[in-house]
């Protein structure tokens, strides 16, 4: 070992890698903060495309046949691209590539990720996957319309929109995305395990880091299932194998396939797909816990339980996948097994909800914009979770499967809820990114518009589902069992959706304006204890910590400590510094 390598990586100030040109600083950057911003901007940009697609679908559903540019095929294409972009290219990328990248090194007291170069590659590979995906809008036949679940055989048969170039580009883009995610994910877990500052034991890590950590492990183990199914489907499509393709008659023609199993694809897809829900949810759980603790000035209720719950949910999420396949004709005993595991996973999840509520209980609640979004999240998540409990039971799922009840459920639980947390997180950490606050008035407007608006969209959808309105339908046509009034409801939902979409533009405008003109926040504006707010330079510069990395002396939740000045103790304050805070407090009291 050379001298250099035995010094903590954390303490090596690597001058050679200090970026100084515009290109190395902002484009080919290896700084985790810049990479995080690149990830976030890209994710939000594709997310906006997905939002526009949802608006177009809603126009068709609310006002059928008014808009000639939407036909049944393009409707299916929009559904598919909307779903896939939202789940993978927006939420996964923004939560892990964006927030994971930004927060991990800062919250655990590291100078950067352990493999900065790999981290940079991860972003550029992700960008490539996004470009491949978006390019499918411009090929002949357009993007795939197979639904975001891409079930074969229909996904690759003519008759489904985009069954030639579209589906291939989708599959290739997914493969590239998984490569990018794996590069990033290896970095996140190694950094968390090997580059924590002195004193930052695992059980002193903020819950944000726990959530990101376990979610990354889930991603590393679950994305392979998607990779495997994508590769096998590419083979079926391109070289004519029959992994998933049974003997089949398509448009009057016998195809060369035989013996493959479409159900096998469903198993593989959901073996990825269910953990994916938690890949999105766990980082959100972590971040919302920290936002709630800071803005309620309370230590998080049941920290240990929260960590255990994150781990338990992570483990259980691998044994519930077939609850998405109750209608695939599975053996009833399988259904029983998967219904049971699904209901069991509700226990740690409910525990987390209770702990958030108990953290708020008698807290010193500051109704800041991040806190509003966090509380909004508790509502939407509880709501979506309860309908999840219903759908987890085979007997309830059978009639509701493939109706708008399902659409309402998953939008509440994995659409709106993580988005709520993302907004909470953006409002909360924006001062750290830029040194400025987001505008408060616009923020409150954004919150109420989004919160009430999404309820106006999704609550009625539950009802439509009960009526039997099917999912992924371009139009209902002549249908006896669905009353006229359902159409009125649909029109109302569309109006709400358009309003919610427009409210997001206000948010974007707020971000752009505040980045340059927002109110200066000063250091640690929320008086948080965790390390990311305690950097030498604010906002943190390259290398994060200046000359010396911090040493950690306590957990991240010392809020409302009565004896000290300012009611909180940062994680890196040594016992001497705490004594100083106590004496300061005594001084001020004597003066009074």
């Amino acid at each position: 070992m050379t001298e250099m390598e035995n010094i903590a990586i954390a303490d090596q100030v690597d001058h050679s890698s200090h970026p100084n040109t515009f290109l190395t600083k902002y484009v080919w950057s290896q700084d985790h903060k810049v990479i995080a911003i690149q990830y976030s901007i890209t994710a939000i940009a594709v997310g906006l495309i997905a939002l526009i697609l949802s608006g177009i679908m809603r126009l068709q559903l609310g006002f059928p046949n008014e808009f000639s540019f939407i036909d049944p095929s393009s409707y299916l294409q929009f559904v598919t691209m909307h779903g896939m972009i939202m789940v993978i290219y927006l939420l996964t990328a923004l939560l892990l590539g964006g927030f994971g990248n930004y927060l991990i090194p800062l919250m655990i007291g590291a100078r950067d990720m352990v493999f900065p170069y790999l981290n940079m590659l991860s972003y550029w590979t992700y960008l490539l996957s996004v470009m491949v995906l978006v390019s499918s809008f411009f090929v002949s036949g357009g993007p795939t319309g197979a639904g975001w679940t891409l079930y074969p055989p229909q996904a690759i048969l003519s008759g489904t929109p985009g069954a030639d170039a579209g589906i291939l580009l989708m599959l290739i883009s997914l493969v590239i995305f998984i490569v990018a995610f794996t590069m990033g994910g290896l970095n996140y877990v190694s950094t968390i395990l090997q580059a924590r500052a002195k004193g930052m034991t695992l059980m002193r890590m903020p819950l944000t880091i726990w959530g990101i950590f376990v979610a990354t492990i889930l991603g590393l183990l679950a994305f392979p299932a998607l990779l495997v199914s994508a590769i096998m489907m590419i083979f079926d499509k391109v070289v004519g194998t029959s992994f998933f393709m049974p003997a089949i008659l398509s448009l009057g023609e016998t195809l060369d396939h035989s013996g493959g199993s479409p159900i096998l694809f469903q198993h593989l897809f959901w073996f990825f797909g269910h953990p994916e829900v938690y890949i999105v949810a766990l980082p959100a759980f972590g971040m919302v816990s920290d936002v709630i603790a800071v803005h309620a000035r309370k230590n998080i209720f049941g920290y240990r339980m929260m960590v255990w719950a994150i781990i338990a949910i992570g483990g259980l999420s691998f044994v519930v996948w077939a609850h998405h396949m109750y209608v695939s004709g599975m053996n009833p005993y399988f259904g029983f097994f998967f219904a049971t595991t699904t209901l069991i996973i509700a226990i740690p999840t409910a525990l987390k909800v209770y702990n958030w509520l108990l953290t708020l209980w008698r807290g010193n609640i500051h109704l800041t914009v991040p806190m509003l979004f966090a509380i909004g999240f508790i509502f939407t998540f509880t709501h979506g979770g309860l309908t999840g409990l219903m759908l987890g039971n085979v007997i309830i799922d059978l009639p509701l499967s493939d109706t708008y009840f399902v659409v309402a459920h998953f939008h509440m639980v994995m659409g709106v809820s993580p988005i709520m947390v993302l907004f909470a997180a953006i409002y909360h950490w924006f001062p750290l990114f830029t040194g400025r606050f987001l505008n408060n008035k616009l923020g409150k407007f954004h919150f109420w518009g989004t919160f009430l608006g999404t309820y106006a969209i999704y609550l009625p959808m539950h009802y439509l589902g009960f009526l039997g309105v099917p999912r992924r339908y371009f139009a209902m046509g002549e249908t006896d069992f669905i009353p006229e009034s359902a159409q009125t409801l649909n029109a109302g939902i569309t109006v709400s959706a358009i309003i919610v979409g427009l409210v997001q533009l206000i948010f974007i405008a707020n971000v752009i304006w505040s980045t340059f003109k927002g109110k200066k926040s000063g250091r640690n504006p929320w008086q948080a204890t965790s390390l990311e707010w305690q950097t030498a330079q604010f906002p943190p510069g390259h290398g994060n910590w200046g000359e010396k990395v911090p040493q950690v002396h306590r957990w991240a939740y010392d809020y409302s400590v009565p004896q000290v000045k300012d009611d909180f103790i940062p994680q890196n304050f040594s016992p001497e510094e705490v004594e100083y805070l106590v004496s300061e407090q005594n001084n001020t009291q004597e003066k009074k």
Partner: protein
Amino acid sequence: MQIFKTLQIKPWLPQELEQEQETNLFPSVLNRDKAATTALKFFLAVVSVIFLLFTITFLQRTQSFDFQALSGEPWLPFTNADILLQNSTYLLVASISIILARKFAELENFKGVIILLTATSLFTLLFIGGQVQVWQQLNQSGFYIYANPANSYYFLLTGMHALHIIAGVLVFIRCIWHFLLDLSYQRLASRLKLCALYWHFLLFIWLFLFFLLTSDTETFKTIALFCGF
């Protein structure tokens, strides 16, 4: 299990602080090697999951009516699998020479290092070449990739394996390149340690695939029965 102890710590109690520091590692004094080892182990877990999932789908498919195993009858290609055995030997030799290369790096023996690094590259490439040859032979004798699920899986699995080997070779070349630039034996040795782990892992995967892909119908029946397909 350390992890269960760790998870029981109550970080909010001051008296547990000291204790906690003892029962927990402080990674800040660790170096890049440790981090790289962690990353590699996670990567191997990822690759294992990939091959595990392929294998499960394969085993299920072996029981379908149209599955024709690639060995068992005289006219089937792997009833006599000598050429695959030969390829296995190449990979085995490469895995051993990479260990020796590391030993020589520790002894700071330039000649030995160069010879063994060359040997490793050579035998690994021989393995790839041998695999390509098998693919060509299969194609020539009509065992096309789409003709039968057994063929499809043969190409798929060996292809995925070869891709992983090629990725390894690229990293390996980068190690050699770095060594030629800085001539640091310690760094070479620690890098070779990781390469060796990867090579052995891929050797293990290959032997597993070898067994799997050259089994005959009877063996598959037994395995499938055992796994409950």
